[in-house]
């Protein structure tokens, strides 16, 4: 059975996430790091996952038409990718560095802001479609 490339990449990335989580747990069991570091490490990896996925979001093939509307669709994808990449990096950074419990609020705030920006931009673009 052939597994498509995106699924292969997804499986590899999932393996890396699980592997990191196991490594962190082993390090905790060996008294090398504390429980807080395990949580922060896993959170940071999740943030990086979001950033990596966002980076390649615009690489995904899409049948965007060569029209003005297509341009708007393309721009919406680009804004979403940039917003999610920045949010993922912020999520990873604050998960590692910000004091508890602010790390959680800041991390979720970053992702929430990116989602709002993405949806807002998409709606603005849709409004543009109707106006044409």
């Amino acid at each position, binding site marked *: 059975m052939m597994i498509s490339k995106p699924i292969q990449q997804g499986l590899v990335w999932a393996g890396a996430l699980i592997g990191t989580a196991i490594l962190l747990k082993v390090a905790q069991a060996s008294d090398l790091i504390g429980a807080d570091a395990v949580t922060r490490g896993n959170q940071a990896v999740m943030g990086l996952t979001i950033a990596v996925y966002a980076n390649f979001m615009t*690489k995904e093939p899409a049948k965007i038409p*060569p029209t003005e509307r*297509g*341009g708007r669709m*393309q721009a919406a994808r680009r804004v979403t990718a*940039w917003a999610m990449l920045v949010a993922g990096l912020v999520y990873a950074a604050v998960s590692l560095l910000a004091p508890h419990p602010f790390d959680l609020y800041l991390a979720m705030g970053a992702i929430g802001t990116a989602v709002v920006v993405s949806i807002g931009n998409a709606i603005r673009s849709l409004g543009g479609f109707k106006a044409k």
Partner: protein
Amino acid sequence: MNTVFKALADPTRRRVLELLRTRPMTAGELAEHFDFSKPTMSAHFAVLREAGLVDVEKSGKTVIYRIKLSVLEDALLGFAGTFGLGTRAKPGALAKSNALKKGIAS
């Protein structure tokens, strides 16, 4: 990654990507923005396609080009454009160079 840097080093190819940023375009629409010959433009398109920076779709007689930049490649394009990296190749130089390479290879 080397092919990406090579593709972004040329101002003409960067201009092509900037045009494609606005919307997907046909090969003809893109060529209208440049004074280069068809073979030269084709050579530029081939470099971009090889680097995976554009997606090509044949629709009947027309060829549609779509931008396919990751966020980091997008940032790199902006950086290269801001600092004006690379020098503009003489018209036809790229096509001649590719023809020479093909001649050597065969």
